[in-house]
C-alpha cells in the first residue's frame, strides 16, 4: 500500500551482541544503579509527625475569624454559601440579643454554620465572596475520619479560638 504520510520510519532491531546475550554486564549495571539509590535520601515525609512546607497561598481547612475584640465577624449573609460551587456550606441566621454583644460583631449572626468537608473542593470562592473577612482557608489539611457525618464541620470546629484577654 502507498504510504499515507512521509513520516514512515523503518525500525531496525539489531540482534543482541555477545555481551548483551550474556545478561551479566547489564545485570551488573542494574545492580549498580539500584545500590546507588540505597544511599540516597528518602523522598518520604513521615506525615503526621512531619508536615510538608505549604506555599503561602495554599488553601486548607476553613476558619471563621473573630475581630480584634474577639467577636465573631460572620454576619450570616449567605454569600459564601451562594458562591460555593460544591454547595458545601449551609447556615442558619439568628438575631443577636443585647447580652450577646461581646460575642458577635453585627446584629445578625450565624447560629449554625456547617461546611461539608467531603463536598468542599477548597476553591476559595467563599473566602473571596465574604464581605466581612470572616472566612479564610488558612488551616491545615482536613483530617481523615470514619463516618460521613463526622466530616460535616460545625462552628465548634470552624470558629477561631477566642482571644486571650490581657
Amino acid at each position, binding site marked *: 500500500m502507498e504510504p499515507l504520510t512521509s513520516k514512515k520510519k523503518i525500525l531496525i532491531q539489531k540482534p543482541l551482541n555477545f555481551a548483551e546475550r550474556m545478561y551479566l554486564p547489564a545485570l551488573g549495571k*542494574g*545492580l549498580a544503579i*539500584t*545500590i546507588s*539509590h540505597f544511599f*540516597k*535520601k*528518602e523522598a*518520604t515525609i513521615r506525615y503526621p509527625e512531619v508536615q510538608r512546607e505549604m506555599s503561602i497561598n495554599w488553601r486548607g481547612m476553613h476558619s471563621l475569624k473573630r475581630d480584634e475584640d474577639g467577636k465573631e465577624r460572620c454576619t450570616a449573609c449567605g454569600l459564601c454559601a451562594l458562591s460555593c460551587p460544591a454547595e458545601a456550606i449551609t447556615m442558619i441566621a439568628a438575631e443577636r440579643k443585647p447580652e450577646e454583644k461581646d460575642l458577635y460583631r453585627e446584629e445578625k449572626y450565624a447560629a449554625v454554620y456547617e461546611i461539608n468537608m467531603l463536598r468542599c473542593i477548597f476553591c476559595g470562592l467563599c473566602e473571596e465572596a465574604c464581605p466581612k473577612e470572616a472566612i479564610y482557608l488558612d488551616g491545615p489539611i482536613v483530617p481523615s475520619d470514619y463516618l460521613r457525618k463526622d466530616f460535616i464541620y460545625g462552628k465548634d470546629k470552624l470558629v477561631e479560638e477566642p482571644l486571650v484577654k490581657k
Partner: protein
Amino acid sequence: MDISFVIEKFILVAIIFGISLVIAMYSTYAERKVAAFLQDRLGPDRAGPFGILQPLADGLKMFMKEEIIPTHANKWLFMVGPGLAMLTACIGTAVIPWGSPITTAAGRVIPLQVTDINVGVLYIFGVVSLGVYGVMIGGWASNNKYSLLSAIRAASQNISYEVAMGLSIIALLLVTNTMSLKEIVDMQHGWHWNVLYQPLGFLLFIICAFAETNRAPFDLPECETELIGGYHTEYSSMKLGFYLFAEYINMFVSSAVMATLYFGGYNYPGMDWVLTQVGPVIAPLIGTAVLFAKIFAFIFFFMWVRWTIPRFRYDQLMHLGWKVLIPIAIANVIITGIVIAIVEKF
C-alpha cells in the same frame, strides 16, 4: 551414646531451629526495608523503633485472619502442602557446619554441626528437591487453575535448574574430593575459598539457587501479574504464612549452603592468629559470626537482585536453564577435570 550427647544435640537443634525462624522472620522485614531503600522510600517504621516489631505484627495478623479452605479443594493435601514446605525448608540446616568445634575447659569437644554425614552435599540436594513438593501439593490441592499452573511451573523450573546445579557441584566435588560439608569447609582454611578455584561453578550455582528458591528473577511460580498469587492463591491465614515463611527459610538455607561450599563457611583470613589470641572457646564463635555475616551478605544480595531486575519470561527461563547453564556447567566439569589431571601429573 551418653545422655550428655543427646542433650548437647538437642540444644544445638533447638538453637539452629530458633535462629533460622528468627532470621526468616526478620528477612521479611529486611526485604521490605531493602526494597524501600532501593526505591528511595522508608519502609515499615511504625511498629516499634525503626519498625523492628513489624514481623511480629505481620505474624499476629496472619494468625488472626480467617482460615478458608475452598469447598472443592482436596482438604487433606491442602493442609499437608504448607506443612511440607515448612518442614523441607527447616531440615536443610541439619548438615551445615556452623563453626569449628568448641573445646571446653573440661576437654570436651562440642561440634557446632547437628550431624556430619559423609554425603552432606547429596542430603542438601535431596532436601532442596523435596521442597518443590510443598508447592506442587499445595497448588494441586487448591483445585484452582492458576495454582495448578504455578505448581507446574515450579516443578519444571526446579527440575531444569537442579540439573545445572548438580553439574556445577560435580566440578566442586572434583576439587574437594569429598561430599562431607565439614571436610569441604575445613579444606577452605584461611582464605583458600572454593570460589577462587571455581568462580564459574559459583556463578552457575548462585543462578540456580535463585531459581530453586523461587526468587526473582525466577519467581515465575508466584508472579502476580499472570497467576494472581501463584500456588498460594487459595491459601489464607497461617497456611499462607507458612508458605511465605518457608520461602525465606529456603533463602537462608541456600545462603548458608553457598557460604559453606564456596565462601569458606566459618573460615576467614587470619583465623589462626585469632585462635592464638582468644583461645579455643571464643575463636569458633567468632568463626560462626563470620559465617553469619556471609549468610546475611548473601541474603542481602538475594533482595538486591529481586528489586533490580524484572522477571524472566517462561521460555527465556527454560532457554537459560537448558541451553545455556547446562552446557556451561558441563564445560566447567570437563575443564576442571583436565586441570586437576594435569596438576596431579606434574
